[in-house]
């Protein structure tokens, strides 16, 4: 039962992340939704898998996948944002500040 609840929470957060990908205006804000909601959604699903299988082989593997997911998601987000900025992707017109511009020049 607890496993089903955790997996449902994970799926719901993944859906929020996908809605964010569609609704938010520019690439940088979309990536915010993609990293945060999707990472915790996947972690929740993995914890649910661990609860379902117990602390055996599959459960432990699910648990080990969580830190890997965290590191890869954050590093990938950083690489994508930096790459997009250097490529010249425009920020949304609602943006209020850009300190990075003078550092790149």
């Amino acid at each position, binding site marked *: 039962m607890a496993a089903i609840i955790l997996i449902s929470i994970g799926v719901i*957060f993944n859906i*929020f*992340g996908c*809605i*964010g990908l569609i*609704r*938010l*205006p*520019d690439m*940088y*804000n979309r*990536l*915010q*939704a993609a*990293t*945060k*909601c999707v*990472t*915790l*959604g996947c972690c929740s699903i993995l914890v649910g898998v661990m609860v379902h299988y117990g602390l*055996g*082989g599959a459960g*432990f*593997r699910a648990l*080990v996948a969580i830190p890997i997911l*965290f*590191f890869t998601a*954050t*590093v990938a*987000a*950083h690489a994508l*944002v*930096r790459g997009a*900025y250097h490529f010249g992707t425009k*920020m*949304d017109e*609602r*943006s*209020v*500040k*850009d*300190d*990075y*511009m003078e*550092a790149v020049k």
Partner: protein
Amino acid sequence: MRYVTIFILSLVFWLLITFKFTVPDIAAGAVASAITAAIFGRYYFHNVYKFLQPRRWFWFVVYLVTFIWACIKANFDVAYRVLHPAMPIRPGIVKVKTTLRSDFAKTLLANSITMTPGTITVDIIGDDIYIHWIYIRSEDPAQYTSMVTGRFEEYIKKFAE
């Protein structure tokens, strides 16, 4: 000594993933860990004796709890912004100074910032971290520095520096 640490960590990781404790499995893991240690050993952990200080482990646990809590908050924050009809966003890139010295600590801080509410690390140049923030709450550098890095910086300083 550095190589030994990497070797032990890789072997533990291998055993956790395969989760079989027969002799062939452990032997294969040992070979793989030895290769990993030979390649990456010189990059990490300049002072392995830090692993043996219980004080650092304590701060690591404190950091981990804070980090998980910040992650959960980040999700509700993003979910709120996404589902709100008017989408309350005020994005921008801010510059934040860090007092951390080692590369490992800086990497950890950048990763923590990416997972906390509304912020993504764009780049690190020297001591400055550039952060994309989905809702800039304040224009004052001192104030937003403490908002973004929060307590992470002091915890990371205590266990990783």
